[in-house]
């Protein structure tokens, strides 16, 4: 009797998890399957697998829409803001974690609480200022905002991590005559690689996926990011569903491949980045 109940329990558990996995994958499956259909086939059959898979939609997207250009723009923004923010955060977090100075605790407290301020609150004055300075639709202007938005989380994570580095390591290096900067570069950073990887993953995902800053601060067609491009693209081809889905497959491919390759770092990173 007890064995049967146990088995029944396992069946229920597997069923629930299978259902959850199916629901999690449905949009992806629909997107890929539909992208392989012709308009005619989609008109008759919206649910089934493609009878005669075609790649025309992918070809049409790449020829007619500047997806690759948008991706390049997004990559520039991700690289610029992540590099800038990581550099500034490493320096600041190192001082906060290892040195004594007035205002240290206040700085950390303020920086940490900024993590939960919604970005939308900041856009009005920055947009007015950028308009005056002619910085709307410049990579540098957008990179600066993105770098700022991801920095509080970076500082929080790095301070937490730097504090776990044993004090003896600093002191030993200090006695050897190494300056602060040398200690940071030669001793602390190599030890912090896991934290840095997590940081880069979370922050890249945030900048790559953002829409709000992108559509406000990069209004030029030539500067459009992938996410802003998607909103234009999906409006333009509203009635050509297979074509739209081919675009979405192309747009999601980079992050999807990264996820499959680095799923451990992604999951760990997003768990610590949950606050965003």
């Amino acid at each position, binding site marked *: 009797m007890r064995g049967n109940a146990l088995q029944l329990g396992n069946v229920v558990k597997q069923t629930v998890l299978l259902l*959850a996995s199916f629901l999690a*994958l449905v949009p992806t499956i629909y997107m890929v399957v539909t992208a392989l259909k012709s308009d005619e086939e989609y008109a008759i059959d919206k649910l089934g697998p493609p009878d005669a898979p075609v790649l025309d939609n992918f070809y049409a997207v790449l020829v007619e829409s500047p997806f690759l250009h948008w991706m390049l723009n997004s990559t520039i923004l991700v690289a610029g803001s992540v590099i800038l923010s990581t550099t*500034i955060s490493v320096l600041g977090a190192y001082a906060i974690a290892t040195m004594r100075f007035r205002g240290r605790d206040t700085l950390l407290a303020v920086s940490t609480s900024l993590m939960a301020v919604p970005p939308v*609150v900041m856009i*009005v004055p920055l947009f*007015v200022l950028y308009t*005056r300075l002619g910085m709307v639709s410049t990579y540098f202007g957008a990179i600066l905002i993105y770098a700022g938005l991801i920095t509080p989380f970076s500082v929080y994570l790095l301070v937490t991590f730097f504090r776990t580095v044993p004090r003896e390591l600093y002191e030993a290096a200090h006695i050897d005559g190494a300056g602060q900067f040398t200690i940071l570069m030669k001793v602390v950073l190599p030890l912090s690689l896991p934290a840095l990887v997590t940081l880069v993953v979370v922050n890249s995902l945030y900048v790559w996926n953002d829409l709000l800053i992108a559509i406000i601060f990069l209004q030029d067609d030539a500067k459009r990011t992938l*996410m802003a491009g*998607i909103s234009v693209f999906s409006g333009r081809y509203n009635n050509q569903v297979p074509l739209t*889905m081919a675009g979405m497959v192309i747009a999601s491919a980079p992050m999807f491949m990264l996820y499959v390759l680095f799923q451990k770092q992604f999951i760990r990173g997003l768990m610590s980045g949950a606050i965003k």
Partner: protein
Amino acid sequence: MTPSSRLTPYLYVLPLAALLGFVFGYPLLKIFEFSFKMVRGIDGPWIGMRNYQLVLGQSLFWEAVLHNLQLLLAIPVMVAISLIVSVLLSERVVGWKLYRIIVFVPFVLAIPIVAVVMKRMFQFSGPVNELLRWMSLDFMALDWIGSSDVALWTVMILIIWRESALGIILFLARLLSLDESVIEAAKIDGAGWWHRLWHIILPEMRGVIEFYVVVSVITMLAAVFSYIYIMGGGRGGPGTSTEVVELYIFNALIRSSLPGIASAASVLLFLVTGLLIFLLFKVRQRAEAA
């Protein structure tokens, strides 16, 4: 200590303070100033509380607030889904590692991409309705996107679908760090599955559940722009049926060029979320202490 070494820390934190000051400090001060001014172009005359009177007197603003509040209804559903899935995963049933990778996929896909896909799935003549009709559930085949009575609920389905993935991962991390010997002991004592869940596992998860709830509240009030913008074809809607405070600020700033109005709404949003941030850190402290 030499004077130069006393200065060293400040050299390290100077870029940090400058960046945070520019991206957070300047705007947070400026929205208060702008909210009392009639800003045209870059500045304008002081007009007292007029912006606030205008915002608070506009039914569109209150409609937006109401919609943000309605989105809060998604949170209990998200918590329930996350709890069920994470508890099952934590029991390490066959294939749990693969399930874990799959159920987290929604959180990896960008919101705009998912919103475009979901919008096509829920179109009146789309696959969801086709499936419902095939199952003879015609009465459920609604105009998910085009009807102003349903549109916000459809956005909510998308939000639940995506944000639950975060809950699952957060809860799972907590569950996997639980002391297994306690659970094993309960098993030996003959405690059933429900009993163990209710009396042993859930009390241990209070901290992480509270944390997730507060994060989600902030999301629902101030971070749903991407969902709304894309599902509503670049402006929300139909009509004002999915208007939220973020969209109100966006439209006031970009479409109507009224930075003063947008600032007044930003101040209100900031103050409300500020209250919640305070709560968040209280909860986090407790979660970390636990």
